[in-house]
């Protein structure tokens, strides 16, 4: 009989890293402060003692250099996991990700694959102000040649890494900073890997589909919970994979509920929410009983002051209000 244990999202990431390092000698972790410091979010705490500094490799503050080195090491037969501390700093290595990792396979006529996993924290919510609060998942989800995933639950944090490492192409894994302390139940035995290709219905419902991912999932679930007290039944879909998008799951849900509310911490203009909205309009317009609603971040650099930051980000109340609007309530 399988027992259940409760661990945090951070511990789940660490367990997944440890399992990957134990199971494949080609796997190594590289990034700023992943070793002696234990990871900026403590995801790799203690791993340097177990695996040594060759495989838990501290890097200088050289995002482009070490991300490109990850691409090269992947080409050279290793299975690197590059940790870019946050998506904000990934703007210093986006050249390597977009111009090299994403292009190499196609540009070489299929000769070179880049089996690289890049993990990065994303999102706002800790009063870190404009330069440390970005949600730029859609920038990467825009690019052919990349796979982009966003574990939103402890089970996904534990299970997605193995699948990402099995993938022969570059995978970017976004971990929302608000999730690291979240706790969840996992079985103590059995295969913990998860499907990274499909979205998942996290809560069934009849009246509206709330489509979201990553750090917004807990907010969407809370909003759905709140609305159920008012007699409104919401289905909540966790996209999980941001590229490719599993639109089949989304469209099937919309076909049942006839209303779509998309929650995305990115800025509305040019967002993933915009892409999903467009695809719903293209493929399921006649299933809809109301216009698509989007709940995104306000179009401002995310401010420091708590009340302003909260006003800028998707909120439980904002999601509930959008659902009611779609229901004309």
């Amino acid at each position, binding site marked *: 009989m399988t027992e259940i244990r409760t661990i945090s999202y951070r511990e789940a990431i660490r367990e997944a890293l440890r399992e990957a390092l134990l199971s494949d000698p080609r796997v*190594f972790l590289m990034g700023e402060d992943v070793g002696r410091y234990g990871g900026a979010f403590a995801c790799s705490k203690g791993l340097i003692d177990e695996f040594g500094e*060759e495989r838990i490799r501290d*890097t*200088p503050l*050289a995002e*482009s*250099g*070490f*991300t*490109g*080195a*990850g*691409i*090269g*090491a*992947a*080409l*050279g*037969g*290793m299975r*690197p996991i590059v940790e870019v501390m946050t998506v904000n700093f990934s703007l*210093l290595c986006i*050249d*390597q990700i977009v*111009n*090299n990792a994403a292009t190499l*396979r*196609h*540009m*070489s*006529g*299929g*000769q*070179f*694959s880049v089996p690289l996993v890049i993990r990065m924290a994303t999102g706002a919510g800790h009063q870190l102000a404009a330069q440390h609060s970005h949600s730029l998942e859609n920038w990467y989800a825009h690019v*052919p*040649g990349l*796979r982009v995933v966003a574990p939103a639950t402890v089970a996904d944090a534990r299970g997605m890494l193995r*699948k990402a490492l*099995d*993938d*022969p*192409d570059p995978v970017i894994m976004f971990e929302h900073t608000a999730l690291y302390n979240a706790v969840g139940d996992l079985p103590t035995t059995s295969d913990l*890997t998860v*499907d*990274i*290709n499909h979205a998942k219905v996290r809560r069934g419902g009849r009246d509206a589909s709330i489509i979201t991912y990553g750090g917004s999932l807990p907010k969407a679930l809370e909003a759905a919970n709140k609305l159920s007290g008012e007699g409104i039944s919401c289905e909540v879909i966790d996209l999980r994979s941001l590229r*490719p998008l599993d639109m089949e799951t989304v469209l099937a849900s919309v076909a049942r509920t006839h209303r779509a509310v998309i929650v995305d911490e990115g800025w509305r203009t040019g967002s993933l929410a915009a892409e999903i909205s467009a695809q719903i309009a293209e493929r399921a317009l006649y299933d809809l009983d109301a216009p698509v609603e989007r709940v995104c971040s306000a179009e401002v650099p995310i401010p420091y002051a708590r009340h302003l930051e909260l006003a800028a980000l998707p909120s439980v109340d904002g999601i509930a209000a959008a659902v009611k609007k779609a229901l004309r309530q």
Partner: protein
Amino acid sequence: MKTSYDGVDLRREHLLELARQMILIRCFEEKCAELYSVEKIRGFLHLYIGEEANAVGVMQALEAEDAIVATYREHGHALARGLPPTEVMAEMYGKAAGSSRGRGGSMHICDAAYRFYGGFAIVGGGLPLAVGLALADKMLSRKRLTCCFFGEGAAAEGEFHESLNLAALWKLPVLFVCENNGYAMGTALERSEAVTDIYLHAESLGVPAQTVDGMDVLAVEEATRLAAAKVRAGQGPQFLENRTYRFRAHSMFDAELYRDKAEVEEWKRRGPLVQFKAWTVDRGILTEADFNSLEGEVEHIVAEAVRFAEAAPLEPVADLAKDVMTPGASETEARS
């Protein structure tokens, strides 16, 4: 040129081979320029004419298992590495038989069989990747090196500094070869760097570095053999700054308003083929007839490459999205 070269085979056979490779690159690229003007080759075309001694000299010191990372001006490197001229030309034509199935073109010639990772067309973008290839070799205890070519323009990029630092810090087997042709597109080195000796930048980052006469193929081979031996001995990265010059414009769109014709002519007098021919003929090792014979041989190779490229089929449009992702990988759950 010098009177002696340490560690370089100065016998006839080897010198003939050096001449053959340089003449092949020259002849191949002159044909490319011609084909560009009649629109057989499109996109960007960056010619290496004038710089041939560098790719040819460096490649002599590399082994089949070594990796090569080059730039968008890489036809010469591809040919000197031994890639079939037919496939390189077919790539220029955008044909499926090209080195990169017509997906890359002039700037992205790749061939896994030769560990030729290809042309990288964002200046400086190949350096981190070369560091990573070398890191993999070191972690897997493989005795081979990665040779990374780039121009002096790359020295202004952050990736240059990041990559040299990583290679030095981790003592990685990388041979950095800076082909300093004096101009980053149209910007002269003294207009872009406060310290114009690029090897000093490398030294300051802990990478042993030296300058080399990049118009002298024997000097390039000599320096590369010495540097490669140190890299192979596990001493970490080495850096060569090859002083060279491109005789042609930056690309086919360049009107060359930024440099004097007299300067170009002066460098042409020191051209790698002119000098090498004089040096070998003066010493009675090669003859005028050898060079004439090589030119005939090479013209035949280039004509054959053009014939191959002309006749080769195009990739079917139905295969447009092929090789964006690895086939089957999007359904990884089936593979567990």
